[in-house]
């Protein structure tokens, strides 16, 4: 790991040092809110981004309509919260962030189209957005072609690394391996049954999980089933579960199927307090629709849960509820989306410039210690070092964390031996 020199220093000091290095020593001691003292626009923006003396434009690109709106609401809310907090604290390089929001409408070419609009028409300095892999794949060439900057919040299958994207969620190995180790060691699990929705993320995740179960844990996978997106009838596979009696049901079912699956599992008399179930697709957001009673007892592995006990998270949850209402729940992706604007701000300030290339160059090694999940660090491969946690679903829709990896786990989007 080639790590940045400044890593160990407190961020504020490091920022000042870096700004000093950037040849603007006078700035360093100025209050952050002083616009007049902000570095000259011409100096911080050499590539024609939408940066004025007082404002910088950032895009938010999520589905507000269509099937994905359900999932993307939280991410979009978190990004807005983060941006408003940054603005309240003086903005980025003395400039307030202006949001341009676009609706991807759960439609991938619309995402590409809107991404292009954000970059070409609005000249956004950065874009927070996308949720599904498909939407990310659709916008990726756009970001690469126009040299944009995307902060992508969802945990995903990996197998990707782009200069123009920062992945603030976990890639599959980060999310899965530690939790499999845990359930094997703590619960003595040896046999696994995989159930997933039929698309790339579950298939890739299950492939990684299978290799790990077979090669590392020396266990067996007794079944692997995929259902079309939107499938709602699971009684047959539940019977198969009853027949095969696996130690662990490992699921990555998404969307409406998720709700149907847990309801039917419960109805079929599979008691999750006795039967181990490990899922990588259920956050607090999903439980809202599934119903806490239906999934209580299941284990979910994520890097973040709303119930995490630490001061950062308490502040974050309070702020989120203040802005979006007490009833809104906060899931893993919501938290990861919240990181995006901050990571960008830090990189911009470290680079002393909004120029994408400089921001990208400044990013690796940045640490964000105020992250609700604890702290994170940007790897040169543009993914985040983060901890993985396993938590048990409670009937009230929250999770109780039962395991936390001791160290930050290195992101490994192209895992050797798992492909």
């Amino acid at each position: 790991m080639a790590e940045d020199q400044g890593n160990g220093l407190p961020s504020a000091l490091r920022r000042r040092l870096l700004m000093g290095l950037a040849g603007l020593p006078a700035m360093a001691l100025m209050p952050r809110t002083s616009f007049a003292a902000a570095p000259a626009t011409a100096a911080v923006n050499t590539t024609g981004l939408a940066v004025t003396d007082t404002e910088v434009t950032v895009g938010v690109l999520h589905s507000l309509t269509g099937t994905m709106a359900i999932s993307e609401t939280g991410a979009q809310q978190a990004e807005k919260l983060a941006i408003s907090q940054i603005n309240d604290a003086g903005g980025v390089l003395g400039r307030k962030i202006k949001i341009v929001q676009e609706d991807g409408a759960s439609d991938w070419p619309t995402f590409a189209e809107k991404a292009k609009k954000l970059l070409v028409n609005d000249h956004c300095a950065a874009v927070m957005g996308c949720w599904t892999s498909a939407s990310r794949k659709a916008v990726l060439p756009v970001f690469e072609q126009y040299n944009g900057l995307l902060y992508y919040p969802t945990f995903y299958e990996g197998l990707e690394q782009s200069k123009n994207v920062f992945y603030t969620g976990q890639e599959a190995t980060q999310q899965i391996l530690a939790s499999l180790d845990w359930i094997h060691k703590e619960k003595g699990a040896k046999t696994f049954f995989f159930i997933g929705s039929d698309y790339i993320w579950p298939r890739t995740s299950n492939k990684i999980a299978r290799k790990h179960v077979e090669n590392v844990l020396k266990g067996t996978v007794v079944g692997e089933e995929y259902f079309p997106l939107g499938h709602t009838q699971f009684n047959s596979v539940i019977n198969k579960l009853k027949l095969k009696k696996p130690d662990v049901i490992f699921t990555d079912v998404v969307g409406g199927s998720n709700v149907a699956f847990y309801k039917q599992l419960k109805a079929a008399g599979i008691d999750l307090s006795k039967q181990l179930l490990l899922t990588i697709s259920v956050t607090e957001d999903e439980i809202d629709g599934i119903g806490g009673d239906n999934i209580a007892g299941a284990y979910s592995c994520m890097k973040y849960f709303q119930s995490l006990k630490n001061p950062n998270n308490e502040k974050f949850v309070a702020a989120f509820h203040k802005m979006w209402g007490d009833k809104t729940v906060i899931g893993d992706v919501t938290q990861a989306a919240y990181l995006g604007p901050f990571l960008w701000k830090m990189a911009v300030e470290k680079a002393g410039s909004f120029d994408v290339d400089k921001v990208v160059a400044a990013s690796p090694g940045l640490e964000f210690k105020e992250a609700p999940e604890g702290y994170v660090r940007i790897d040169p491969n543009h993914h985040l070092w983060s901890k993985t946690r396993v938590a048990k679903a409670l009937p009230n829709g929250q999770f109780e964390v039962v395991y936390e990896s001791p160290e930050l786990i290195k992101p490994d989007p192209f895992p050797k031996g798992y492909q």
Partner: protein
Amino acid sequence: MIRPASPSTVHDNPFMKPMEWVSLALLAAVIFLVLPLCLDAFRLNLAGKYLSYAFVALGLVICWGFGGILSLGQGVFFGLGGYCMAMYLKLEASSVENTKIQSTPGIPDFMDWNQITALPWFWKPFASLPFTLIAVIVVPALFAFVVGTAMFRRRVGGTYFAIITQAIAAILTILIVGQQGYTGGINGITDLRTLNGWDIRTDSAHNILYFVNGALLVACILFAQYVKRSKLGRILVAMRDKEDRVRFSGYSVAGFKTFAFCLAAVFAAIGGAMFTLQVGFMSPSFVGIVPSIEMVIYAAVGGRLSLFGAVWGTLLVNWAKTTFSESFPELWLFGLGGLFILVVLAFPNGLAGIYRTYVEPRLTRRAKAPESAPTALPHAAE
């Protein structure tokens, strides 16, 4: 000729009526002059994307408007055309050089992620551009021919046909998503770069593709017009009206329906291929039920009986969609839903119908006025 003047106009079957020439000129002017001059590169690329949907609408005019065969599976053909093109582009983008980090270089990235170690046989021919261009036409046509023959032979029509085509769209979507090692799955085939070495991602390439797209569209309109004014076009209309009568005039109805369906499929496929070229990827989200029905509404808004209307309808609906969803994303579905209902209830012949009922009479009255004046004179003199 010796024939008296008035009946001979009855018998004339000109390729296009004067007003149709005007419509064509207007459309061509908008596509080739107004849009390129008024829109920036980004918006023009969008317009190009919309125009690629217009191919589908055009096909629907022939198959649904004229032939009365409503297909809710045009997305399938749009997708087949698009995927054929995307496979070629993807193979070109997956040169050994570009993919050297993969465990098997030289194959598309998604195959590598799915542990496929050699290019599947049905991908291989798509390394050739001529083959691809032929496949764009032939594959959807063949598929439409098989489906059409099977169903029309057994007199499946109307609502049944609509529902079965819809089911086919659903099946194909599940297949494409499920067979991700061969199809790229739900992400589709992305990151397409060059066409025979020519970078299709640049603004200039987009411009050129836009004009190629426009030219192809006009060519398709002209071919559709040829079909429309041929006896085959009239047989289609006759069939929609009285299928049995056509049968008892000695025509094999199934054959004609299949032809209309195949033609619509080929148009849709051309649109799909152009879409892939302009947008730079293809995904199963254009194959399914929702896009297929949306494509029907383009034709309905434009006027299901009007070739030009189909193009205008497509442009209008998509322009509205983009504008609305930019400014009022929450309202967009209300707008689109309302549009469906409004068109069906109040304007069953769409824009073309509005034009014909309100605009054309005035235009022709004005145009005829000076003509009729001199002919009126001799009468007055009598």
